[in-house]
């Protein structure tokens, strides 16, 4: 590997971290940690394995065909199935744009004490400027490097000097704590899966591979990105659960605001720690805003076959540019209705969980098409992990909406 290749691999890895931790994770992890300790950490392990498998598969399809996996879905499975997938993922990812935008604004509120609603227009403008001015890789790099500050959560776990034995026994107890019911426990299983195995990561990863002009020779690089990036994201997720457990579980504090996800770091590491955590939250949610927004416009453009992406001048992708702008403004307007961003997040991730198998299945089928994929078709490992993930996500899919209603979003 020459130095420039090492550099490129770092970029992709960083983007995988930034893509994994977003508002959904921050909220779900902190809530889960505060209420269940590490008793749901196994869900994160499962989610990491699942999303790694499908991101790698979608990445491989993109390398081989120079087309994102979902762009192939329409010509393979017909316009009806693809339209169903498009509408479903737009509903979920569209809600997430609003949630991530609010997350950026909330991070700015933490830093400035100015109400987050006042920050929303500023954030919308900032997102528009970044999308307009920065090339794809610079964008990934900036929020990726800033996202590394999230590692402060791992440091905070050490600093809180936990009883490691207790953490381990919490992580290995696969049932709710005495004060919580099974439906609520299961609802948070669904929420964590929805927050961590987000299909937009897979769409964005494969569209990003196309935008970065990756080719079959970049296979190893792509796999390193997956193998390093997503587990690091998973480590951060478990660290957020752990600090929330250590600080909030005993006093019985329920996480209802984004600030409470940063608070444990402040307690462990003081003001400096809090500042670093806020920078991390800002970077993660800002990066996720870009990802969810672009993933939504990519989806629409690919379904209808429009030119898209940042490789063209915007005037040569006028419909794509317009859709991106409209989605951004609409999400900003929705956020300004003062709808609770935490509620939006929880609903979005639960719906995302319900859609998972329908969005994973086409990728699995395309990656198995030997005529299309040649020597890059799925091996037994991808197929085994992929099938298990889809089988379990079918269960999650059936249970997601009933649990959302039954537990009133985990508040019952």
């Amino acid at each position, binding site marked *: 590997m020459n130095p420039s290749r090492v550099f490129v691999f770092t970029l992709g890895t960083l983007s995988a971290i930034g893509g994994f931790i977003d508002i959904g994770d921050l909220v779900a992890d902190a809530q889960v940690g505060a209420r269940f300790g590490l008793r749901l950490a196994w869900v994160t392990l499962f989610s990491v394995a699942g999303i790694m498998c499908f991101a790698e598969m979608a990445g491989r399809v993109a390398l081989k065909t120079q087309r994102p996996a979902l762009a192939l879905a329409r010509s393979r499975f*017909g316009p009806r199935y693809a*339209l169903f997938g498009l509408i479903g993922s737009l509903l979920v990812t569209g809600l997430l744009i609003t949630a991530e935008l609010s997350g950026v604004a909330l991070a700015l509120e933490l830093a400035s004490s100015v109400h987050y609603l006042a920050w929303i227009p500023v954030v919308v403008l900032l997102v528009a400027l970044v999308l307009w001015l920065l090339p794809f890789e610079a964008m990934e790099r900036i929020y990726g490097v800033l996202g590394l500050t999230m590692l402060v959560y791992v440091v905070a776990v050490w600093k809180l000097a936990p009883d490691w034995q207790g953490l381990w026994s919490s992580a290995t107890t696969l049932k709710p704590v005495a004060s919580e019911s099974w439906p609520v426990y299961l609802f948070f299983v669904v929420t964590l899966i929805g927050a961590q195995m987000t299909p937009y990561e897979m769409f964005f990863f494969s569209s990003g591979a196309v935008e970065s002009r990756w080719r079959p020779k970049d296979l190893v690089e792509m796999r390193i990105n997956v193998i390093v990036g997503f587990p690091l994201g998973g480590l951060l997720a478990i660290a957020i659960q752990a600090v929330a457990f250590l600080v909030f579980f005993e006093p019985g504090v329920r996480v209802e605001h984004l600030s409470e996800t940063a608070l444990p770091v402040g307690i462990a590491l003081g003001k400096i720690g809090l500042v670093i955590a806020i920078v991390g939250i800002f970077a993660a949610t800002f990066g996720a805003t870009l990802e969810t927004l672009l993933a939504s416009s990519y989806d629409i453009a690919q379904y209808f076959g429009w*030119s898209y992406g940042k490789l063209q001048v915007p005037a*040569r992708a006028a419909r794509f540019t317009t859709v991106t702008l409209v989605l951004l403004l609409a999400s900003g307007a929705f956020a300004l209705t003062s709808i609770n961003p935490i509620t939006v997040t929880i609903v979005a991730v639960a719906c995302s969980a319900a859609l998972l198998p329908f969005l994973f299945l086409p990728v699995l089928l395309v990656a198995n098409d030997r005529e299309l994929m040649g020597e890059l078709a799925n091996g037994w490992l991808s197929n085994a992990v992929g099938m298990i993930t889809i089988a379990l996500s079918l269960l999650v899919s059936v249970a997601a909406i009933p649990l959302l209603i039954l537990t009133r979003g985990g508040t019952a």
Partner: protein
Amino acid sequence: MSEHVSARIALLDKQIVDRDRLAFGRVDDVELSIPTEGALPRVEALHTGAEALGDRLGGVLGRWIGAPARRLRSDGDAPPAIDPELVDQVDPFVKLRARFHELEGVAGFEHWLARNLVERLPGAGHAAE
């Protein structure tokens, strides 16, 4: 195109790109004709755009998708169609010999948005370059 291939597999829903590989739509429908009784069907035109897609999907959803495109089309203009003579290759994309900007009546909304919105923004470049 005189080869005998399955239009459903070879054409329908495929990405269409122009001479410079600029994507602008998909094959949303294929118009066939049967010259004489018992003869093989011939491709008369490739239809692209939401109107053709909506008609093909049918039902309420199809109407919703097709209606805006139908309304936006000027009275008297035919629905967007591509002459199969312009098709250079069909795999993996339907690639045309012409440039997108030379095709009349195809993806009118793209042209309109480029002209009236996107090109006016600073640094957007020009669609025809």
